């Protein structure tokens, strides 16, 4: 009897301790979990429900099944904005090339590197809205800095930039390259400095040229960094909004409207909460697939080891 009692009290003690441990843990977790539930998990579920409904906030919501998604598939504007968003992503490799070249140059032991780093990083820390406003002035067709310069070097009819259907997208991409160059350069620089020197030495002994060393050592060793920049670029690219809002308002003729801008208009200008949610989910699925594909593709290339 006594033994049983002892075991019971012990198990009770264990239970008490277990309960206490759990309570402590949940007290630590509490604030975060509360926020997580309220502002992430519930909204995600609500958004999923909304995607199958029609709602203007004022009247009662109406369940419409897959109607939103059917509309979406046939929505010519949506596909136009989708292709705009993809087009914008062509800026990613351009930016990467610029940053990589800068990083390769900076990787030489030169005096005053810190000054260059400071300068190249100025646009990175600047607010995107301020930068967008500044570039809207630079792109002014008549008196902007860029066209003044182009006229000065003899181009009589420089592009109309932000007011041209053809040039508005490249204009925004150029601004991105300018703003992001310093950031990606620093990522590349960190990666370059992590490449073991003996790889280059071995290649030199084998008679590899500078170009061969770059192509067969540097570039493969930068795999993870490239992967990271591409993924961040895609995720960021799909969420482009502020600079478009400030610089073009999505125009001219919708040529710079991105998907997120379309979601914003649907939800907060036209109050089509349901349709906006279905676009948001579509966007999420695309980002998800893109990331998975990249992961799978890059996963094989990233694995390497140096003995």
């Amino acid at each position, binding site marked *: 009897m006594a033994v049983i009692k002892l075991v019971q009290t012990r198990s009770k003690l264990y239970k008490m301790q277990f309960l206490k*441990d*759990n309570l*402590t*843990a949940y007290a*630590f*977790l509490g*604030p975060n*979990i509360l*926020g*997580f539930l309220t*502002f*992430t998990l519930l*909204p*995600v579920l*609500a*958004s999923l429900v*909304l995607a199958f409904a029609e709602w203007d906030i004022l009247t009662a919501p109406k369940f419409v099944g897959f109607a939103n998604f059917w509309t979406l598939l046939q929505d010519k504007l949506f596909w136009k904005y989708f292709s705009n968003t993809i087009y914008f992503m062509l800026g990613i490799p351009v930016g990467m090339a610029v940053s990589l070249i800068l990083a390769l*140059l*900076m990787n*030489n032991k030169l005096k005053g590197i810190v000054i*260059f*780093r400071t*300068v*190249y*990083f*100025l646009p990175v*820390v*600047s*607010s*995107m*809205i301020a930068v967008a*406003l*500044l570039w809207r*002035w*630079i792109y002014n067709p*008549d*008196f902007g*800095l860029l066209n*003044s310069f182009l006229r*000065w070097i003899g181009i009589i009819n420089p592009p109309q930039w932000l007011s041209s259907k053809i040039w508005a997208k490249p204009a925004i991409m150029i601004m991105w390259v*300018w703003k992001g160059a*310093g*950031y990606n350069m620093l*990522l590349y620089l960190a990666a370059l400095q992590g490449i073991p020197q003996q790889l280059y030495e071995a290649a030199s002994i084998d008679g590899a040229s500078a170009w061969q060393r770059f192509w067969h050592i540097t570039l493969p060793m930068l795999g993870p960094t490239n992967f990271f920049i591409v993924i*961040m670029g895609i*995720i960021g690219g*799909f969420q482009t*909004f*502020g600079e478009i*809002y*400030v610089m073009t308002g999505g125009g001219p003729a919708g040529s710079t409207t991105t998907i997120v801008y379309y979601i914003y208009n649907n*939800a907060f200008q036209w109050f089509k*909460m349901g349709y906006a*949610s279905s676009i*948001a*989910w579509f*966007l*999420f699925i695309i*980002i*998800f697939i893109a990331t998975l594909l990249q992961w799978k593709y890059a996963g094989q290339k990233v694995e390497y080891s140096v003995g």
Partner: protein
Amino acid sequence: MDYLDKSLSRKHKFNRFLQEKVLILLILVLGSVLMIAPFIWMLSTSLKEPGAVFTYPPEWIPASHITVTYQDTEYGLYKVMVNGKEEKVIKIKVFKNDADVMIYRDGKVIEEVIKVPANELKEFKKIKFLWRNYIEAWNAVPFGRFFLNSIIVGLCITFGQVFTSSLAAYAFARLNFKLRDQIFLGYLGTMMIPGTVTMIPVFILLKLMGWIDTYQALILPGMFSAYGTFMLRQFFLGIPKDLEESAFIDGASKFTIYLKIILPLSKPALATLTTFVFMGSWNDFMWPLIVTNSMEMKTLPVGLAAFQGLYTTNWTLLMAATVIVLIPVLMVYIFNQRYFVKGIVLSGLKG
């Protein structure tokens, strides 16, 4: 002979090396010019007279057309060659090809009308910074209020996120509890969901609460993040357990351990997260745009966009406003740049 050969080739190598360095420096300097020119252009525009921005070629140094008063009328001063000597003149009358001018010398107008070819008259300009633009821009919309809002929102979000994330991260890293791994997986899973998905329901929720256009709406959704929790958990896992164990034997509570041991040991990670979160909140545009209506509640980026809506093509004021918005951040950056760069890059690498 052999020795000479060697030294020659060494010299040749050194020359090549030098040339390479000079070329690299040249490209880097050119790149720096491209990076800085827009900022200089912004500063220059912000200090010009409204009309002075519409000139070709553009002037980098703000200058004003000097005027003088003659017989209670203001005249612009011009430079022109008179009898082979450059003189300052005022323009009395302009005809088709020539103009009647009077020479202005030693602060006085010499009352004698001279005819000069009109196209030879050049505006007499002097460097002049129009600081007034800044005052005008500052007063056009409540920029002071925008700054205040951005600071309040930024501090609250940063403190809230670092605090809640570090608490949760401690639980995930050190405590045993039911469903720990499941909950953590749930956190990880939602990290990939873009903000656009949750944005609409959160907006509706805040609208139902009657919180649109309040600080709650600006701050609350930003106070929690799975990303911060994840990042700090990874860092906490790397801290050796010995210290905590001896503190535990001394009877310290879990919270004391968190506060007195874990947090002080995690300064680098906390600093990184702080920089990252504050920068993100300071520059955030879409969320404050959605949840604010009144001028009084706008944060800096949204306020700047609203300012642009009011002064669409008033470039001197627009650029003055942009400078006002950019200067504080750039100052903080330039004086703390080592720390800044580290924070930004680290947060990127770990993301």
